[in-house]
């Protein structure tokens, strides 16, 4: 018989759970409101969402750094706080994009918003834990919600995207489970800090290191699906194409950064312990990812697919920082994604603006390059803004992504990986071509005669979001210092 289990509230330390509870309760609140009154306009839900996310944001800020709670399942370290803040800010920027001037039906369902909050709760669990099971549960909660959100965009290729994403996600989940199982079999623990100790002790035992590395590789494959590393990236363009543009932009940031955090916790351990094969595999995957995705992006005819490949390439960039295993490298991951987030979300929002509800520009694509021909003569401000985003993504200073790139390359150089920095530089040059291609279409070509095919979905909320993205992209030089010192401070306070 088990003895009586006594747990005090003190030990449970519920405040560490508050951010997730807010998201979950917020989702339930939205469902309850829908039960009571079912003809509310989407603007009501959007504003409710922003308020809930705002409260969530506040609760994250009030967390105590390096606190544990809930049977030690929850670990609130600096990384967890930074990531949660990033996820919440991205979500707050994403949600108003539902308020387009044309009606897209998925945003009229309150379930959309409830699911969205459950997804955020899932991601929050995922990043605030060092327990493999809780990470897995968070990952699946978030992913299942996300599949549904994609499918709610009622088009045939959205179903295709959702099913494709679901299938890939299921495979990734399988790999995650197998990897965790191997690690549990060798270390007898699912807590990362305990795993680290055991691996450190037993690394040199004959036969064991192969199993440990194999476990790491299986986990790496699982993350490679989620972060979209080569050769597990093939789903990305199709899924982004099928999903509505803002959701695609959202997917290129939030799920990836959440997965990066988990990868950082696990492979940070591996790299700290000097398990070189894992570092080599990560580096090879990262280099292949950025190079091949860039080359694929060159031949795309659709801007959204191009942006999909571009976001794969950016993920490769960031992944290589993870292999460095230095504080500066870890900091650069978050700096990069923070700066990248505004620009990339802005670029996808510009596609959203130009989206027609039913009529597609051509039979195959929603956003082919030709659609944007001569945009400078049609909507000059739109063209200038889009060009800014493209230049920023290409890494032209002083726009935001340049600072991220600078910091990652500097981190690589510091660690002695000069060849890596050179490859990053050459890749940026390749990438510049396809970003320029859009600028060339917008500025240097004549507008399409049949203007009815270009449709502008603009509304005030969208303009506000674009405005925020532009301001951050252009003025990033002025707050780079604050961002850098805050993130460095937070990472220094992490368990890694």
């Amino acid at each position, binding site marked *: 018989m088990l003895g009586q289990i006594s747990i005090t509230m003190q030990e449970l330390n519920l405040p560490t759970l508050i951010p997730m509870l807010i998201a979950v309760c917020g989702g339930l609140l939205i469902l309850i409101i829908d039960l009571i009154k079912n003809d509310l306009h989407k603007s009501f839900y959007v504003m409710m969402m922003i308020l809930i996310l705002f409260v969530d944001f506040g609760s994250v800020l009030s967390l105590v750094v390096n606190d544990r709670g809930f049977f030690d399942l929850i670990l609130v370290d600096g990384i967890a706080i930074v990531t949660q803040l990033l996820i919440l800010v991205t979500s707050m920027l994403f949600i108003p994009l539902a308020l387009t001037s044309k009606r897209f039906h998925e945003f009229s369902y309150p379930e959309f918003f409830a699911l969205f909050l459950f997804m955020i709760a899932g991601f929050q669990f995922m990043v605030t834990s060092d327990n493999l099971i809780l990470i897995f549960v968070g990952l699946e909660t978030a992913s299942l919600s996300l599949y549904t959100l994609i499918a709610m965009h009622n088009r045939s290729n959205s179903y295709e995207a959702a099913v494709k994403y679901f299938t890939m996600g299921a495979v990734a989940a399988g790999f995650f489970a197998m990897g965790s199982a191997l690690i549990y079999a060798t270390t007898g623990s699912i807590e990362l800090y305990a795993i680290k100790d055991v691996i450190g002790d037993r690394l040199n035992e004959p036969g064991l290191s192969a199993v440990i590395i194999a476990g790491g590789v299986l986990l790496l494959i699982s993350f490679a699906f989620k972060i979209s590393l080569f050769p597990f990236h093939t789903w990305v363009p199709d899924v982004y194409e099928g999903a509505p543009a803002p959701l695609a932009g959202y997917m290129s940031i939030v799920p990836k950064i959440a997965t990066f955090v988990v990868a950082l916790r696990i492979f940070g351990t591996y790299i700290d312990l000097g398990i070189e094969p894992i570092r080599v595999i990560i580096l090879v995957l990262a280099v292949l990812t950025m190079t091949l995705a860039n080359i694929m992006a060159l031949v795309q005819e659709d801007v959204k697919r191009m942006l999909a490949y571009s976001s794969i390439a950016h993920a490769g960039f960031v992944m290589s920082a993870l292999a460095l295993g230095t504080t500066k490298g870890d900091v650069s991951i978050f700096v990069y994604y923070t700066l990248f987030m505004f620009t990339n979300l802005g670029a996808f929002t510009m596609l959203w603006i130009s989206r027609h509800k039913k009529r597609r520009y051509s039979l195959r694509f929603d956003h082919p390059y030709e659609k944007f021909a001569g945009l400078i003569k049609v909507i000059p401000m739109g063209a200038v803004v889009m060009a800014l985003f493209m230049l920023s993504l290409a890494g032209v200073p002083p726009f935001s992504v340049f600072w991220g790139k600078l910091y990652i390359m500097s981190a690589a150089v510091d660690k002695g990986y000069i060849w890596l920095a050179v490859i990053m530089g050459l890749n*940026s040059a390749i990438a510049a071509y396809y970003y320029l291609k859009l600028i060339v279409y917008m500025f240097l070509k004549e507008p399409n005669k049949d203007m009815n095919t270009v449709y502008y979905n603009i509304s005030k909320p969208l303009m506000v979001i674009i405005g925020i993205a532009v301001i951050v992209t252009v003025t990033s030089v*002025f707050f780079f210092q604050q961002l850098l010192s805050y993130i460095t401070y937070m990472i220094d306070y992490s368990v890694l």
Partner: protein
Amino acid sequence: MDNILSVLIFFPAIAGLLGFVIDKNSIRAYGISVAAVEFALSLFLWATFDGTSAAMQFVELIPIVPDFGISYYVAVDGISLFLVIMATLMTLIGIISMSVKNEIKNMVITLLFLEMTMVGVFVSLDVIVFYLFWELSLVPMLYIIGAWGGPLRVYAAIKFFLYTFTGSLIMLVGILFLAFTYYDIVGVWSFALTDWYQLKMGVNVQLWLFAAFFIGFAIKVPMFPFHTWLPYAHGQAPTIGSVILAAVLLKMGTYGFVRFSLPLFPDASVIMIVPIAVIAIIMIIYTAMVAYAQEDIKQVIAYSSVSHMGIIMLGAFAMNTQGISGSIFQMLAHGIVSGAMFMLVGMIYDRRHTKLMSEFGGLALVMPRYAMIFGIMLMASVGLPLTIGFVGEFLVLIGFYKVSPILTILAGASIIVGAVYMLSLFKKTFFGEVTNEENKKLLDIDARETFSLVPLVLIVVWLGVYPTPILKPIDVSVSSMLELMEAKAVKPKTKELIASMRSEDKEEN
């Protein structure tokens, strides 16, 4: 005005932003006024500049990212001062002479932004800020070539952008490595050039870093064999684009060599004297021959630009005051002369919509004033004594003679080749009978065109006869730079070479 450099950088940018609200019929006047004020400000900078001091003047230092050592750090010395003035002058004259009619508002605004980046490159002493302006200058030029250029404009614009962008990213890796080396030794991050000047590095490290910076700068210059983007860019660019590109943007590369490569890597620079000189002589002779084979007047001048940039490179690596000062003087001379030549070609293109030499002949009879100015500029270009082109070339050759007489003789001989293609261009276009009927009705240059060309003619003659006011401050800064190089060199041979060069300089003075 202590912060005049910031005013110089941001005045055109703010004017460019405000330009969006100006009516398109008034935008040309607006552009000219802004550029004139900017030019006046740069003259004021010269007036208040202390030409006898080698120190950095008008220093402004504001930390931007203190944790990472990036700060807004601008200053000017004898090396950069005149490049700034030339940039503002050529922008002003370029806008005055501009014949673009369509989308003129976008053109003027783009030019003003371009002017900001040009001034910024020459006065930044923080390497990241330098890099920022350096990269940013590509964007307006891309737009100018791509929007107003010839039939292959998009191809030419993208080629220009990608070529330079690739080179500068390799340079960025070099910059980051150098910054890390500084951090490794000193313990704090800094991207300030004056801090880096204090850094002593091993020869091996210097060579690698030299190579990284070399790729960035050599593509911009452009040095053989990286010059292939230039004929396209010039061939397709509108007149104003070619003027700015030849006069100012190419100088960023050679300025980079003088400002960064030489003082940061003295040992590597001395080791690289011969390779660079060989490339420079190939540039001078090979592109002169290519220029001779061209049928398009603009292409002749484009290739002659590459040839002249070879002379500048040769001087920069002479490691003595004459050579380097001559090289900087030649940057100014080439800026003014090639800018004027491209304007002249643009004027004839506006009239006839062709630039082929075979279409012309006997123009001296129909357009005497045009022919005279063209002749003066051409003479300056081939380096006739008493023109601006002679001073720089002569100094470069004297300077380099001390390094290697044979290479200098080769380079000197090439000036004759230069004279051949230029004079044959002049002969084919201006002398003889007017064979083509269409040319008989051509009008001579009008008041606006005269007004934009005459100041350049005056400068060509004035600085050809009396270059001292410009050469003196350049000399002062260059000799202090050589002193720094001597102090910094780690190899005894390098120290010896620079020391002997410096003592010879002193004797001559």
